[in-house]
Structure formats: structure tokens, C-alpha cells
């Protein structure tokens, strides 16, 4: 497989975003490393390309057409109206026409038409139907790994066609003929074996959490605990494993601990279910997604907790909020007075509503903060009890903890938000060019509020967004420290009791 292109031009940010003219094959060189047999087999996929790949791929497509209604409906309904063509951050950043959502769908649709529709069987040229060939498979692999499954296109489609569903189906077919993506599949195998994406075993985790307790003690002289495998705790907190190590994620974890401490609610992390992320969704594989999620049900039962709270992570919240009840429910063993699962932002917001938390906003007075809506939270889930709570609640937390808050342009936030450029299983250095270019729309919106409102920090509630921005901000002349966790700001402003 080709190496990631070493050198590429960094796009120039402009004040008024433009829709680029199409540049065919501009990203035809971009493809991630292919999974090796040891990454494929633990997931139940063939280790390498199978001999009868064409037959297997079509069989799989036929099977999925009968299992997922989204596929036949989305593949039939598109009228090529073009409303989605200028909505994808990867198209806006690369100008490769195959990164227009409809064109990305067409890579699968043209094969669907050839083998599964009357029009495509008898009049292939007329309706743009093609045979499944090696070139088609190659295009699938390249361009289904240039989609972050962010669903922005689905907001504007008159039929709600969601390219994420098509990308997931494409990846699922590729996995079943032995062409998986190394990054995602290696990670899923690690979760099955060890319990988290990083492959952190229990002793390392315990060590890290002890270190955190010492750090917080030194910092604010309060004995905040970060408990692990505490049976009988009220709350099981499941958070992305990046929160244990990466910056700025860990500052968010510190913040969660302070909120639990201040609220006096007992909580625990689990070494068995030490991961909220679930890359099973990225590869569109129901069984792997269910198996990853089952660790959390198992941990909740074993530890005897009453509630499950999920840390700051976008796709994890989608899986938890939208899919857990289906995959690993019912949750009749948990306290029915609380939603299952509950987002850490909902948890903190409820405490604020009850008057259980006090803030000293001046603690964040050195910052002017904006908020990056993460795609999976915005367009694939909810917080609170009303539609749009996923936009309101994190902002309320920021307003409660900061004196200076501004929003970015309306067409780049809430349901219109742009992906960070690294979501959907693309947060890997072999796709760096794609990540840098895909970040353009967000970078432009951010630059505008920096220039006009003096914004110094952008808060996010997604581990992938945080890692991606840390990496790409410097490419655009901005500091990697700009990106912060919402619960870092919450924790910094939280009045911790008598000590203050």
C-alpha cells in the first residue's frame, strides 16, 4: 500500500469560505494502511483478500440490503439534486469530486444498480451502472476512508440520505473480503482483548489514576479521588481511554473527578470496560460494536452500580445514547430515576440546576472561549429532555464557568457543525493530508472568531476532536493549546468547598 504523501500544500484560510471547482483525483493517492491478518481475524474477518472477492462482496451487499433499510432506500431515492455537493468538509478542503457526498454514495450505488436493479441490469450506461471491478474496490477503499461519517450531508438531503450509512456499508463489505483498515481494526482487536483502545492493562491504569490524585492534591490541595473498580459505587463512569493520558483530554477527566467530588456522589472507573470509544460503529459492523459495548454492561453488573455516565467523546456518545439500549439493554438493573446512559455534561448540568455546584468564573478570565460542536453529538444524539439539548447543555456549562464565551458562525455550529477532520476512524497519521485539509472549514470559522472576538480557546467534548485539533491547529498557525476539554474549564472554575 502506498505511503501517505509526505508533502502537501497547506490550504490557505480565507475570510469568506468558497466552494472549490472540482479537481478530479485530487485525493486519489490517499489511502490508509491495510489491516494485517492479525488485525482482521480477531474481528471475524478474513485475514487477506479472498479469492472469490467479487462474489463475496456482492453476496454481502445483498445480505445487507435485506438487513438495513437505510441501504435500499438511500440507494434508490437519490435524485442527484446536488444539495449535498458543497457540504462535506473533505470536499471543501480537497476539491476531489469523489468527496462530494452524492459521488461517494455513487461509488456503491453504481454497483448496486448493476446487480440489484432492473434499470442497471439492462441499461447500465443510461443510469451510470458499472460492474464490480478491482478499480471499483480500490475506489471504495480510498474514498470510504475519506468520509468521517459526520452526517453533515444528511441534514441537507431532501430524503435524509446519510452518507455515513453508505460508508459504513462500504467498509463492512471491504472487511468481509479481507481488505480492512489497519487503524480501526487493530484498535477494535485491542478492546476485545484488553478493554481499551490504547491497550492499557489494569496496573497501568491504576498507576495513572493514582498519579492524577497526587497531581490534583498538589494543585488545589483537595483530596479528589479517581477510583478504579470500586464495587458498590453509585456511578460507573465510562470515558474514552485518551482521557487517561492525552492532552488536553486528561484535564477533562480531572474535571469530571472534581464534579463528582463536589457533588458527593460515589463513582468508579472500570478496568474491564476502560473505554467509551467504540470503533465498531466506524466499520459498520453490528457484531463487533455489540461485543465492544457488552464490556460496559458486564462491568456495570459486576460492580453493582446504579447509574452509567459517559465521558466526553462524540461517537461514543452516539453509540451509548442511540445504540446501547438496542445493543446491550435493557437496563432494568439500573436506577430508573436517571437516564441510561447519561452524558457527563447532562450530569454536571443537572447538578448546576439543583444548585449543588458553585463556580468562580474569574478563574477562566484569561480565556475567551468558543465551542466546537462534535458531529456525532450534534447530529446523531441528544442531551437533556428536548431536541437540541446537545447544543444548549455544553454551552450552559461553559457559560457557568467562563465570563467570556462567543459562538462561531451559525452555519458552522449546532446541526450545521463541521467535523474536526479526524472522525470516523481517520485519526491516523497515514491520513494526515486528508486530516489537515478536512479541517479547513472549522479552521476558517475559528480564525474568524479569533480575529473578530479575540477567542483564545476552543472547547470540545470529543476525544477525537481534541486529538485532531492538537495535531492540525499548528498547520494553520494556531497554538495546539487552544483546544480544551469542557470539563477542564468546568473543573477550573468549580469552587471545591472550604478550601476556597
Amino acid at each position, binding site marked *: 500500500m502506498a505511503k501517505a504523501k509526505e508533502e502537501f500544500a497547506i490550504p490557505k484560510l480565507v475570510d469568506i469560505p468558497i466552494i472549490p471547482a472540482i479537481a478530479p483525483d485530487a485525493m486519489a493517492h490517499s489511502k490508509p494502511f491495510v489491516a494485517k491478518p492479525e488485525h482482521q481475524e480477531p474481528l471475524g474477518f478474513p485475514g487477506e483478500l479472498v479469492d472469490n472477492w467479487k462474489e463475496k462482496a456482492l453476496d454481502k451487499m445483498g445480505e445487507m440490503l435485506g438487513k438495513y433499510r437505510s441501504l435500499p432506500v438511500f440507494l*434508490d431515492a437519490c435524485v*442527484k439534486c446536488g*444539495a449535498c455537493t458543497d457540504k462535506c468538509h473533505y470536499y471543501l478542503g480537497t476539491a476531489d469530486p469523489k468527496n462530494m457526498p452524492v459521488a461517494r454514495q455513487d461509488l456503491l450505488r453504481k454497483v448496486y444498480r448493476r446487480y440489484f436493479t432492473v434499470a442497471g441490469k439492462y441499461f447500465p450506461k*443510461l443510469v451510470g451502472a458499472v460492474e464490480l471491478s478491482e478499480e471499483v474496490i480500490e475506489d471504495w477503499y480510498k474514498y470510504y476512508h475519506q468520509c468521517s461519517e459526520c452526517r453533515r450531508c444528511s441534514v441537507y438531503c*431532501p430524503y435524509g440520505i446519510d452518507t455515513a450509512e453508505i460508508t459504513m456499508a462500504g467498509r463492512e463489505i471491504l472487511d468481509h473480503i479481507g481488505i480492512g483498515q489497519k487503524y480501526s481494526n487493530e484498535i477494535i482487536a485491542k478492546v*476485545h482483548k484488553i478493554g481499551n483502545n490504547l491497550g492499557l492493562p489494569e496496573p497501568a491504569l491504576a498507576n495513572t489514576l493514582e498519579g492524577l490524585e497526587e497531581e490534583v492534591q498538589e494543585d488545589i490541595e483537595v483530596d479528589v479521588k479517581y477510583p478504579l473498580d470500586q464495587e458498590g459505587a453509585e456511578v460507573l463512569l465510562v470515558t474514552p481511554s485518551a482521557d487517561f493520558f492525552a492532552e488536553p483530554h486528561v484535564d477533562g477527566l480531572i474535571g469530571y473527578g472534581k464534579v463528582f467530588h463536589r457533588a458527593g456522589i460515589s463513582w468508579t472507573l472500570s478496568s474491564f470496560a476502560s473505554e467509551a470509544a467504540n470503533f465498531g460503529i466506524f466499520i459498520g459492523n453490528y457484531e463487533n460494536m455489540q461485543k465492544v459495548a457488552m464490556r460496559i454492561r458486564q462491568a456495570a453488573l459486576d460492580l453493582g452500580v446504579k447509574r452509567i455516565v459517559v465521558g466526553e467523546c462524540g461517537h461514543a456518545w452516539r453509540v451509548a*445514547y442511540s445504540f446501547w439500549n438496542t445493543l446491550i439493554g435493557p437496563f432494568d438493573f439500573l436506577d430508573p430515576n436517571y437516564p441510561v446512559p447519561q452524558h457527563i455534561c447532562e450530569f454536571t448540568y443537572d447538578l448546576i440546576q439543583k444548585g449543588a455546584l458553585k463556580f468562580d468564573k474569574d478563574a477562566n478570565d484569561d480565556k475567551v472561549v468558543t465551542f466546537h460542536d462534535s458531529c456525532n453529538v450534534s447530529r446523531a*444524539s441528544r442531551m437533556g429532555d428536548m431536541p*437540541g439539548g446537545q447544543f444548549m447543555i455544553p454551552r450552559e456549562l461553559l457559560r457557568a464557568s467562563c465570563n467570556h464565551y462567543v459562538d462561531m458562525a451559525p452555519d458552522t455550529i449546532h446541526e450545521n457543525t463541521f467535523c474536526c477532520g479526524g472522525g470516523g476512524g481517520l485519526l491516523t497519521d497515514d491520513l494526515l493530508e486528508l486530516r489537515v485539509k478536512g479541517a479547513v472549514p472549522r479552521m476558517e470559522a475559528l480564525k474568524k472568531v479569533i480575529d473578530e472576538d479575540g477567542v483564545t480557546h476552543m472547547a470540545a467534548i470529543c476525544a477525537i476532536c481534541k486529538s485532531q485539533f492538537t495535531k492540525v491547529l499548528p498547520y494553520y498557525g494556531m497554538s495546539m493549546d487552544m483546544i480544551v476539554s469542557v470539563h477542564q474549564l468546568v473543573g477550573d472554575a468549580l469552587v471545591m468547598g472550604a478550601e476556597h
Partner: protein
Amino acid sequence: MSVLTAIFALLFYTATVILVAGLVAKIHQYARTPAPLKIPTTPAPTTRGGVVARLFREVVFFESLFKGSKWSWLFGWLFHFGLLIVLIRHLRYFTEPIWFVAALVQDIGVYMGFVMLLGLLGLLGRRSLVDRLRYISAPSDYLMLVLLIAIGGSGLLMKYVSRTDIVAVKAFFLGLMRFDWQPLPADAFLLIHLVLVAALMIIFPFSKLLHVPGLFFSPTRNQADDPRERRHLAPWAAKLDATRTAGN
């Protein structure tokens, strides 16, 4: 009875059977295929009533398209609205006595024919002029617009240029519905109009016109946002409950 009448009678019977049977088969396919996961595009309504309202706004106002592309929305909505009124007006040729709604739009219906054409020409212009749309268009995408323009155009030509014996046409269609064939006038524009309409009916269930039933089955639009409150389980997924496990 002329050969012409027989040919057109058989053409419309065939077209009707293909349209109805094709749509029934497709709707049956969509209806029996489960949506195993909750995937509404959020923010989404939390109740069934809210979902009905959302679909209503999509069908009547093209809500999402309005967010997506103002030009596509404008031309698309003009075309669809014009077509709707024109179709209602055409019901006068299939009802006796004339259905009152069809009579109501009698006058405005003609102008709606022009509105419909304007929308179609706008859509065709956009498809041929914008590079992104040219890239995603197959020959069938242009032909569909040309077909609809030709149907509208031949209809208007009959109204303003070369009129046909509309009373005889109505007798022909009422006769078809009662299996009592009546002669069809042999006027060029009428025959072109009817052949194209029959072609559209035949193509419908095999083409992107499936967006009509498709919208109602689209899980991102027709699901309520209530996954925490209700356990959503497709039959094939429910079977996995018995065997699900964690870890290796």
C-alpha cells in the same frame, strides 16, 4: 374501433399495471426491511406526532432541501407544486361528474403548467451549468428532466397551439376505466403527450422517482428520537441477545 385506440388502450393498461405493481413491490421491500438501529438525524422529534410533523414539512415544504440549496429548493418546489396542481386539474378527465377540487383549480391549473416548466428548466440549467452537478449526473438524470419538460410542453401546446377534442379524450379515459373502449382522437400533440406520460409511468418504479415512497421510509427522517426511553430491536438483532458476549 381503430388500431390506434387499441394500441393506446393497451399501453395505458400496461403502464398502470407496471406502475402499481412496481410501486407495491418496492414499498413492500422497504416495509419488510428492518432498520436495526436508531439513526434519526438530530435534533429530531421525540414523539410519533413530531415525526409526522417533520415528514409533513419535508413533503410539503422540502424543509431539508431549503437548508441545503436555495436554488434547487426554488426550482424543485416550483416544479413539484406546479405538477401537483396540474395533476389535480387533470382529474377532470377521469371523473364524471367532475370532482369539485379539479373544477376549483381549472383556471389556475393552466398557469401552473408554466410554473412547472419554469421549475424544470431551472433544474436543467443548474444540472448543466454547475460543475459539481455535471459530475454527478448520468444520462438518465438529464433525460428525466427532458421527459418531464416534453410532457409539460406537449400539454401546453395542446392548450395554446393545436387543440384536441378534449371531450373525446375524456370519453376515451372514462372508457378505459370502465373497460368500454371509446375512440381516441389522432392528434399529434395528444399522442406525443400520452406516449410520454405512459413512459413516465413505466419508468417510475425503476428510477430515482422512487424518492416519492423512499422519503416515508427514510430512517433518518421517520424515526423518533427516543432510544433511551424505548428499546428498539429489529428481529434479526433480537436473536443476538441470546448469544452476546464481551471480550475474547
